[in-house]
């Protein structure tokens, strides 16, 4: 689906600052791929390069990122580099960003924002029909029709994010890219949204790429995992294998530093005080 070949990506506003350094990766059909790493590891930059959003000084210095999609209408195969993915946005490719508040327009009702984002093929019938279709789709995720009449500030953060995830799935994309989709949310809501994303992926049998700093999230839902550190991929493989048998020191440290709900505690470590 996506082939990343020895790509170096960075920001070219002042000089060139490398954020992703000579990375190669193949993302296949019908899988959930996680990209993990800490701040500054290049995970979000890599994601934006895959999405093909080169609007803010982001550029590919060397190497290629290319995608292969099957067009729904003509059944033809589309092959193009990510710099030309713009035509495929909200058609073959959907994107779920982190900050649902900063993405949605505060002055527009949800319905209008959903409709604006849809590709032409979805907008054929009357507006009333379209609204009914969207409402029915949202209902499948336990979202009521009245969210369409709400302004973003009238919805909770979790609700807004669920709406965004639902919109991303509505166009039946072959590739969904999610950049820290649940980071600002409470764990109970986070779980709900992650389960919703897994459900979407299993039904559409498409590809989900999930960027998260939280290894627990990757452990729960990803099939394959890529660990990034300082712009490089230090380890990649099946998620279960990486957790069972991490190869790289950095990965081992990350896994070891995860706090657990049972087991050793700081009080035991220091010696429980006097």
């Amino acid at each position: 689906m996506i082939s990343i070949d020895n790509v170096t990506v960075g920001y070219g506003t002042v000089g060139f600052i490398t954020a992703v350094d000579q990375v190669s990766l193949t993302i296949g059909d019908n899988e959930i791929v996680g990209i993990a790493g800490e701040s500054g590891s290049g995970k979000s930059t890599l994601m934006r390069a895959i999405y093909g959003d080169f609007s803010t000084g982001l550029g590919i210095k060397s190497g290629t990122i290319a995608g292969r999609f099957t067009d729904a209408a003509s059944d033809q195969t589309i092959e193009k580099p990510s710099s030309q993915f713009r035509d495929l946005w909200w058609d073959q490719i959907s994107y779920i960003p982190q900050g649902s508040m900063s993405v949605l327009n505060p002055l527009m009702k949800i319905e209008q924002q959903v409709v604006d984002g849809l590709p032409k093929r979805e907008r054929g019938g009357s507006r009333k029909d379209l609204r009914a279709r969207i409402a029915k789709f949202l209902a499948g995720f336990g979202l009521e029709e009245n969210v369409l009449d709400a302004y973003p500030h009238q919805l909770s953060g979790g609700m807004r994010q669920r709406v965004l995830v639902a919109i991303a799935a509505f166009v039946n994309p072959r590739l969904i890219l999610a950049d820290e989709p649940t980071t600002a949310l409470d764990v109970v809501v986070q779980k709900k949204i992650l389960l919703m994303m897994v459900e979407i992926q299993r039904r559409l049998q498409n590809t989900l790429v999930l960027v998260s700093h939280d290894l627990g999230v990757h452990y729960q839902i990803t099939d394959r995992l890529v660990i990034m550190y300082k712009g490089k991929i230090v380890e990649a493989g099946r998620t279960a294998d990486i957790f069972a048998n991490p190869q790289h020191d950095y990965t081992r440290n990350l896994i070891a530093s995860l706090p657990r709900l049972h087991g050793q505690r700081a009080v035991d470590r220091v010696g429980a005080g006097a």
Partner: protein
Amino acid sequence: MSDAPILEVRNVSRSYRKGGFFGGTHFKAVDEVSFTLPAKPQVFSIVGESGSGKTTLARMVLRLVEPSEGDIRLLGRPLTGKEGRINDLEFRRLVQPIFQNPFEAFSAYLPIEDYLRRTALNLRVAKTVEEANQLADRALRSVNLSLERIRGKYIRQFSGGELQRISVARALIPQPKLIVADEPVSMVDASLRMSIVNLFRTIVEEQGVSFIYITHDLSTAYYLSDQVAIMNRGRVVESGVPTDILDNPTEAYTRELMAAIPTVGERWSELEDIGRTYPTHSSRQQTGSNQPPANA
């Protein structure tokens, strides 16, 4: 005096008016919460999700928000009210805050050492710049930094983890009795998070400072604290020793919270059943593969 509990919170509530220019309703952000931090230094964690009231509670302990009802006593003396209230300067020497985002806690326009010196001088724990430097250096050394290492630097020249350690050092300058830390590690990378949490534990043991650790993260609270209180909708639903609570949670809310944490080692059971039902819409068929849209 030394036997007086560090902090006693008794039936404290805080309500806010919600909606309506006239009338409107009252909403209790914190609802009759009581707890005690004994004289022996320890970590008391308050765990809750957004809107649980944990931050409002912290702000009342920090005297940034007045309780609507109930009272809070520090070393046996009232924080609020008219009689015998601890004065501001003394209060700030005894109780210090650490906030979530260290980049917002410090001025961006001062070298950080200046900021630390001013803290010592403003709190009048140092009379001269020399003394202030000594206090700052001592505090920095207890977080594995030193005045030498931060000299001349501004906040943007530090990483989040380093800067949060500096805010811990800042809080330690007046040698307080109690530090209230509101989500101190939620913006810090996972690999550094545990080092800061361990640092809190060391400070408790070595410097005799108590901590109130406010967090949404049950797992660090479990790891770090002597006592934990779980808040939901303004109330403490369950409290006690973390091992007791997490090994045997009695409240449904605690169980729900625990079940939602993406832990490593055990996958969510719900994942098995996913994918059987899926909402559809008419534009494309729900076969999973791309189909021509019905309206093409």
